[in-house]
């Protein structure tokens, strides 16, 4: 067992690392869904934009400035998207808001396409995070090791924020009952804005970790991680933060095991890797069929 684990350590390491990155993105999805019942399709692209900002800013600024600046700009981006694309549609049917989200996603991708000229941009090497380390015989980057810890720390901080601060309480109230909390004097718009800003902040952190690992940013870089993170959020029970985090780690690890399937299980390559993305969905569907609201989702009962 230990031998097996040792031999395949590199798969598990990259699985845990990518899982942590998905988790940070997934929180953004799940929080927004909890409050607005909106699948924020643009979230993956906010993540991609954070990556691009870093590419452009670090070209002229030192990391001490560019890293915080990227965090701030991403938060601003999240805020603007909510303000411009979602708030005007607050009373519109849910489908319209979701279409707006798809529209924003499309817009961000195409803007990135135009400004990058459709080429992959090389992500800067962040000192320390980018250096290689060897752990128990597996060579990897420091970022791989840092990611899960950073993720857990951020999630704990976020849970404390939601449990113990006034704004956190407001968030919980709004996600429980939108109308009533409005009547109770909670400033809904403020809560929603802050939710988007927190989500964007975490996406920006995820972008540092993710792109340091994979080194290049393209306009479509956000699509797949975004989709996977969203699946993780649904998988864990959308609206539940611990659910999203656990879902993300499970998906990250499974995905890497599938990719390494031929080597791990000694099954000669019969196109396993074709299914590394599809597997995520297959897993999700099985979970949904067995437990229609995800692992930690609350059951909703229609009043008749």
């Amino acid at each position, binding site marked *: 067992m230990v031998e097996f684990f040792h031999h395949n350590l590199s*798969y598990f390491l*990259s699985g845990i690392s990518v899982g942590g990155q998905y988790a940070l993105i997934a929180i953004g999805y799940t929080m927004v869904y909890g409050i607005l019942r909106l699948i924020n399709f643009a979230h993956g692209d906010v993540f991609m934009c954070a990556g691009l900002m870093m590419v452009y800013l670090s070209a002229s600024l030192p990391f001490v400035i560019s890293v915080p600046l990227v965090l701030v700009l991403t938060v601003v981006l999240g805020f603007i998207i909510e303000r411009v694309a979602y708030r005007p549609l607050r009373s519109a049917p849910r489908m319209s808001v979701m279409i707006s989200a798809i529209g924003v996603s499309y817009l961000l991708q195409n803007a990135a396409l135009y400004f990058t000229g459709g080429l992959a941009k090389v992500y800067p090497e962040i000192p320390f995070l980018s250096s290689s380390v060897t752990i128990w015989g597996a060579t990897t980057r420091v970022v791989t090791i840092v990611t899960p810890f950073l993720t857990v720390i951020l999630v704990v901080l976020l849970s404390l924020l939601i449990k113990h601060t006034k704004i956190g309480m407001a968030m919980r109230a709004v996600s429980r009952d939108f109308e009533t909390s409005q009547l109770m004097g909670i400033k809904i718009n403020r809560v929603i804005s802050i939710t988007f800003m927190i989500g964007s902040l975490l996406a920006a952190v995820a972008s540092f970790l993710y792109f340091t690992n994979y080194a290049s940013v393209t306009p479509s870089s956000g699509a797949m991680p975004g989709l996977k993170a969203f699946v993780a959020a649904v998988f864990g029970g959308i609206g539940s933060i611990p659910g999203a985090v656990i879902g993300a780690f499970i998906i990250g690890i499974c995905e890497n095991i599938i990719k390494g399937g031929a080597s791990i299980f000694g099954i000669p390559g019969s196109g396993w890797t074709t299914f590394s993305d599809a597997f995520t969905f297959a897993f999700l569907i099985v979970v949904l069929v067995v437990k229609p609201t995800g692992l930690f989702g609350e059951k909703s009962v229609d009043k008749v």
Partner: protein
Amino acid sequence: MKKGFLVFLVALMSSFMLFAGGAGEEDSTVVKIGVFEPASGDNGAGGKQETLGIQYANYLTPTVTIGDTEYTVELVMADNESSNDRAATAAATLVNADCSVVLGSYGSGVSIAGSDTFRIAGVPAIGITCTNPQVTEGNTHYFRICYLDPFQGTVLANYAYDTLGARKVYCLAKLGDDYSGGLVNYFIERFKSLGGEVVSETFPEGNSDFTSYIANAKNSGCEVFFSPVSTEAAQLIINQADSQGLGMPILAGDTWDSNVILQAAKGKNVDITVTTFYPEGADPEFDAAFKEWVNADSTRLANNGGDDTISAVTAMGYDAYYFALQALQNAGSKDPADVMEALWTTEIDGVTGHIALDDVNGDAIRNTVYVKHANTETGGWDALPAVVVD
């Protein structure tokens, strides 16, 4: 307010229609050459470099004399977005713009996908660096000035077996990509016939995590990592190979002959060898003049990947332009049908060597493959002895 906006929208759309419909009066002394290249997507970088070669040649020789008339050559660009489903529409745009001949594309899949549109319109196309046999096979309108994958794959397999001494090779292709899939296939065919062993895998579109594939290569005890994929994926592979300590030579085909690769490999612990169409330095005159031209304009420089390294695809694009001009002259007309007829017998001496086409599929008759090795210290290519096959 909303209705006013609607009026505005309708007005805008009708003006679009007007301008898009009537493309302007036809100038009888203009001959149009279509540039069917990707400017975005996976192969955007390579497509842009190939386009640069065409543009440079057009800059040097903006006119052509057909019969007794001197025509101005107008390049019509259409971005096929490296995507097979967009290719047909991009091709239709070129056909609709009355191009006499079309150049491109970088990437075999898009060429195959656009091929039928050209066939139906009767417009000849000249493949520049699309190496998959299916591009020209069984048709009379698609030509090509580069060598083919069975040839390149054989050369690469020989190189891995004989020069690198490898007996087990890891092959990684992109799922659904005719170029990498085809090349890997011919490589495997040859390598196995030499007595070697291969592990072959594919990665899906949009994949950016190659760590598991690299781990697979290491764990399965392979000695060479063969991955002739797009430059986009190549950057990621180089980066992750370095951070994971791949520890075996990486071998790739002509796509990797790009400064994108050099930039990614600079300062990294990787060993990269590629085969290509043209090694920088083979024609110093061309090299120097092209560098000057590229450095004169920031957009060109950006399109070339930020520096003035000459990619083989640029040289091929350059040759393709002159090949097309020669065909136009031989045809004595700008009618696509005449050009198509003339192409079979067109020959030129380009910077990448003598170009003549065979009479079966209209493929170039070439027997030389250049081999380059990435120098990770200087960030340039070191030329290795070229391979000549008889």
